[in-house]
C-alpha cells in the first residue's frame, strides 16, 4: 500500500486556510469509510451473512418437507461417520492434486516461455492475450466442446483407430475421471499462467544475466534463480486452482457423466433433495478444509506485497 503520500498531504492541508483545513481534514478522515462502504456492504450482505446462515442452518433439523430451527449435531454426525463422505473427500483431493500438478507444470512452462523467450513486448502481449481470452468465455460451453473430441466415435478414437494404434474405441476418454481432470486442466490452467507470468515479469533481468556470467547453465538459471523468484505467482495460482477444484460440482457432474463424485456435487445433490441442513453441514466442513489448505499455501507468500 502507498502510505508515502501521507506526510505531504498533511503539510499541504496545514498550508490551506484554517477553516477550510479543518473541514477538509474531517472529510479526509471520513472519506475512506465512505469509499470502502459499498464494497464492505456488498460483501457483508452477500458473503459474510450468508456464510453465517449456513453455519447456523447446519445445526438445524429437517424432514422431507421443511427445515426447523434447532440445535442438533446429527447433520455433522451423519456426515462424518459416513464412509461415503470420506471416499468423496479422497476423490476430490485426488482431482485437486492431479489438476494442481499438471496446471503447475503447464503454467510454469508457458509463463517461462512468454517471459524469458519471447523477445518483443508486442508479441509478449499478443501471446499473453491468446492465453487469457478463453478465460472470458463460458465454462460450460468449454466443457461441452470436449464431447466430439473424446466421445466413443470422437476425433481421438477415430484418429487412433485409423492410425492402427487401437482396434476398439477407448471407453475411458469421456465420462470418466480422466475427462474430469482434462476439463479441469483446460479450464483452470490460465489461473496458473497469469500469476506466474506476472511474477516472472518482475524478476530483474540483471539477476539472470549475472547468473549466466557466473557460469550457470540455462537449467541452473531456471532452478536456482527464476523458480524461487516466481514462488509468489506459483502460490497464488495454486490457491486459485486448488480452491476452484475443491468446490467444483458442475465439471465433475458433466464430465464424469454422473459416475464420479466430489464434495461440491454431494452438496449440490443434497440441495436438490431440499436437505438444506445436511448440505449446510457439508458446506461448513468443506469451507474449513479449503481454508486450511489456503492458509498453508499463504505461509509461502504475502500476497498483499505481490500485487
Amino acid at each position, binding site marked *: 500500500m502507498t502510505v508515502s503520500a501521507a506526510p505531504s498531504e498533511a503539510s499541504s492541508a496545514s498550508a490551506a486556510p484554517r477553516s477550510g483545513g479543518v473541514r477538509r481534514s474531517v472529510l479526509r478522515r471520513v472519506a475512506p469509510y465512505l469509499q470502502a462502504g459499498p464494497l464492505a456492504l456488498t460483501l457483508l450482505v452477500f458473503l459474510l451473512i450468508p456464510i453465517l446462515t449456513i453455519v447456523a442452518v447446519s445445526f438445524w433439523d429437517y424432514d422431507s418437507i421443511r427445515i426447523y430451527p434447532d440445535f442438533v449435531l446429527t447433520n455433522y454426525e451423519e456426515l462424518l461417520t459416513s464412509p461415503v463422505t470420506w471416499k468423496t473427500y479422497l476423490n476430490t483431493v485426488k482431482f485437486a492434486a492431479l489438476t494442481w500438478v499438471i496446471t503447475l507444470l503447464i503454467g510454469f512452462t508457458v509463463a517461462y516461455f512468454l517471459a524469458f523467450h519471447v523477445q518483443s513486448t508486442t508479441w509478449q502481449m499478443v501471446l499473453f492475450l491468446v492465453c487469457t481470452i478463453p478465460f472470458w468465455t463460458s465454462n460450460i460451453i468449454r466443457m461441452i466442446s470436449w464431447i466430439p473430441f473424446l466421445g466413443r466415435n470422437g476425433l481421438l478414437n*477415430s484418429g487412433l483407430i485409423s492410425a492402427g494404434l487401437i482396434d476398439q474405441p477407448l471407453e475411458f476418454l469421456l465420462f470418466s475421471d480422466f475427462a474430469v481432470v482434462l476439463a479441469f486442466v483446460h479450464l483452470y490452467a490460465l489461473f496458473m499462467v497469469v500469476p506466474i507470468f506476472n511474477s516472472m515479469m518482475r524478476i530483474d533481468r540483471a539477476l539472470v544475466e549475472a547468473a549466466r556470467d557466473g557460469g550457470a547453465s540455462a537449467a541452473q538459471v531456471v532452478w536456482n534463480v527464476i523458480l524461487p523468484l516466481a514462488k509468489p505467482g506459483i502460490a497464488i495460482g495454486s490457491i486459485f486452482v486448488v480452491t476452484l477444484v475443491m468446490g467444483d460440482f458442475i465439471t465433475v457432474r458433466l464430465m464424469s457423466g454422473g459416475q464420479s463424485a466430489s464434495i461440491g456435487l454431494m452438496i449440490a445433490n443434497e440441495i436438490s433433495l431440499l436437505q438444506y441442513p445436511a448440505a449446510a453441514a457439508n458446506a461448513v466442513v468443506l469451507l474449513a478444509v479449503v481454508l486450511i489448505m489456503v492458509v498453508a499455501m499463504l505461509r509461502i507468500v504475502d500476497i498483499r506485497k505481490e500485487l
Partner: protein
Amino acid sequence: MTGTGNRRGLSFYLLAAFFGLFVLFLYGPIATITILSFQGPEGGLTFPMNGVSLHWFRNLFEQQAVGDFGGSFRRSIALGLTVMVLTVLFSLLAGFAFRRRFLGSGALFYLAVASLIVPSILVSLGIGLLFNILGIEPTWYGSALGAHLTWTLPFGLLIVFAIFNRFNPAYEEAARDLGATPWQTVRHVVLPILLPSLIGVGLFGFTLSYDEFARTLMTAGSFNTLPLEIYGMTTNVTTPVLYALGTLTTLFSFTVIGLFLAGVMILRRRRLRRTGGAA
C-alpha cells in the same frame, strides 16, 4: 530486452512448440464444436459431417421446447452490464480508500480475499438459505446480482490495488502544487491514468457474470440466466443445437472481448498522440 540473449537455441523451439500445443489445447475443442454446429439436419454430435447447413442455428431460435433462450440471453446481458458498472465503481472507490489506513481495512481486505476462495456453491447455498429464511423471493436482479458481485469485486479490487501500487504519487503532488482541488486531481490526473485498467476491471465484471453458473444456481429465482439455460440443455438435448448455442455464445464473448480490447487500444493511441503533441 536482455533475457536469454539473442541466439535462439533448441530450448526456444521446444518451448515454442509446447506453447503451440497449449494454444491448440485451449482453442481446439471450441473450434471443433464450431465446425460441428454447421452439421446437416441428419448429422449427429460427432464427426463425420453429414452435409453443411444452418439447420441447428434455425432450430435454436424456433424450438420452444428448449426453453427460453432469448429471455435468458437478455437477462444475462442486463445482469452482466449491471455487475460491470457496480464492479468498476465499487472497486475503484475501495481502491481509493485502501490508499490510506482506516479502521477495519485489514478485515475488509481479508473478507475480499475470502470471497475469492469460498467455493461458489457455498455462496449460492448461503444466499439461497438467507433469502428463504427471511421470506424474500430470490431474483436474478437481486440475489443473483449480489452473488455475482462477490466473485467480480475481489478481482476488481485486486486489479485496482495493482494499479495503485504502480501509481506514481508525484503526479498527484504535482497537480496539488499547481493548485488543483482534490476532485480536480482525481478527475484530470488520476482517472485518465487509471482508465485503461478500469476497462479491464469492466471486462472482468461483465464476462465473469455473463458466464457464472454455480453462484446463480440457487439465487436466480424463477427466471433462468443463460448459463443455467445451457446447463439445462446439456442434460436433455442430444442434437447439435447445443453446439449452435455454444458457437453463438462464444462468438458473443469474443465480440465483447474484442470491443474492450479495441477500447483500450484507442485510449492508448489517443494518449500517445496527445503526449507526442505536447512534447
